[in-house]
């Protein structure tokens, strides 16, 4: 147990902090060489996210009753810059998420996010892989699995089959720790997220960076849908060392579809009894003006440091984790 008298001390050791600083420099150097512009958009902004599973921390400014949102990612502001003609940009900075504390989560964390104009998903995954190999010296070449292949390989279920919900419920009965919650679950996306996070992800080879691609259209978040297969979204995630490292999209550029997804999020929030969240009208306005075709990805920088240093807990790579902040 933490003694009050020890709480002034850093939660990471100094050697880790030196390595962390070297990695921050490597990231900036990587993008400098590629002519990608560094930006630092506001952390404190008028709008937060509508994503039903994310919670903004909010605060107030004196003389103003509005609840300002600490950003859960710089995505909206960066897209407004892209629409304004910034060209390729990256951001390496803090993000805040309420309700997130674990061995892999700190409510304040460092996110690396970048956008590449004209890139498709494969080009962006290649660039991410190069960055991972630069930062994590021994990383082997990445492996690729579609969402469908991952479900077929580890659970023998096709997530796009007509009867996939009951087939998946049945397959999950073989995993004692999730059997009860799977049997009760009526929402197909939630059931698939349970299978992915609690059954498939732990079985991915931790020694090989693995891209999961072609997520279901219903879990597109801010990705566009595939031109060739309307069941899937142009979205990927990267897993390595037992950690979820990155989430990337071929970005949705259609303002009307973006507005529809905001509304769908708000309906979902209300179904889940989550507090309402206003849609970022400035993002929709920027998309209406025109977002160039681009691909973007967000990477948990602290988790990269965990992998580089072989640490199991995020607190061991932060100068001061939340319990010492």
């Amino acid at each position: 147990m933490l003694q009050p008298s020890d709480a002034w001390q850093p939660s990471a050791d100094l050697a880790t902090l030196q390595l962390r600083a070297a990695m921050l420099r490597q990231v900036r150097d990587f993008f400098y060489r590629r002519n990608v512009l560094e930006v630092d958009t506001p952390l404190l902004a008028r709008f937060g996210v509508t994503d039903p599973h994310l919670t903004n921390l909010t605060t107030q400014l004196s003389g103003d009753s509005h609840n300002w949102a600490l950003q859960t990612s710089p995505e909206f502001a960066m897209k407004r810059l892209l629409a304004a003609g910034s060209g390729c940009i990256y951001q390496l900075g803090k993000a805040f998420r309420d309700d997130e504390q674990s061995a892999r989560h700190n409510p304040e964390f460092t996110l690396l996010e970048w956008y590449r104009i004209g890139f498709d998903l494969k080009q962006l995954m290649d660039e991410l892989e190069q960055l991972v190999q630069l930062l994590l010296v021994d990383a082997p070449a990445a492996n690729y699995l579609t969402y469908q292949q991952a479900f077929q390989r580890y659970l023998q279920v096709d997530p796009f089959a007509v009867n996939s919900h009951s087939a998946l419920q049945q397959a999950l009965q073989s995993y004692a720790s999730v059997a009860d919650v799977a049997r009760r679950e009526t929402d197909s996306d939630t059931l698939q997220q349970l299978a992915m996070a609690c059954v498939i992800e732990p079985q991915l080879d931790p020694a090989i960076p693995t891209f999961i691609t072609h997520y279901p259209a219903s879990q597109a978040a801010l990705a566009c849908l595939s031109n060739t297969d309307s069941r899937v979204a142009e979205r990927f995630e990267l897993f390595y060392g037992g950690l979820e490292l990155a989430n990337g999209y071929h970005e949705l550029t259609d303002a009307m579809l973006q507005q529809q997804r905001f509304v769908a999020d708000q309906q979902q929030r209300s179904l889940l009894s989550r507090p309402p969240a206003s849609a970022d009208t400035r993002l929709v306005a920027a998309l209406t003006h025109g977002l160039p075709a681009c691909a973007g990805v967000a990477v948990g920088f602290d988790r990269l440091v965990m992998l580089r240093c072989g640490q199991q807990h995020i607190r061991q790579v932060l100068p001061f984790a939340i319990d010492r902040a």
Partner: protein
Amino acid sequence: MANYSTNEFKAGLKIMQDGEPCSIIENEMVKPGKGQAFNRVRIRKLISGKVVEKTFKSGDTVEGADVVDVELAFLYSDGEFWHFMNNDTFEQLAADAKAVGDMTKWLVEQNVCVLTLWNGSPIAVTPPNFVELEIVETDPGLKGDTAGTGGKPATLTTGAVVKVPLFVQRGEVIKVDTRSGEYVSRVQK
């Protein structure tokens, strides 16, 4: 009994699962960057003693279990029940064989034990970490033997069998660690 939300989960919280009161040992959040969060929880079932892993959707609620620990002095056993008393209120409580389990061999009259009560009824009995019991039977040992050279079985008044050093004799009182069942030392009478 109150319900608990997953965000109140922490080690030691008592909840109902599979019709049995359980104690949370460890609670871990599994939260993908996009999508539903889950709580992966290790729990100990308080009646069967089994440790199992369960997953809950974050935000779900779970029925709490009315489980409390009370300190009571052991009085006597009538063969069917083990009787305990609260030394302050003199209130008595009887635990059955299922609740006492194999702890019966460490129950010494007047010793204060921890009784785990579910809805007011005992489901587990935890004796003190150390108890002193007399040896009623053991082979005669060799004089001059020192502790740590093997040992021999000794039967205590409660029926417990403990490995003791060769020099310890019948009629002596010894101190035993009830968590490991190991001999600690002789006790001066």
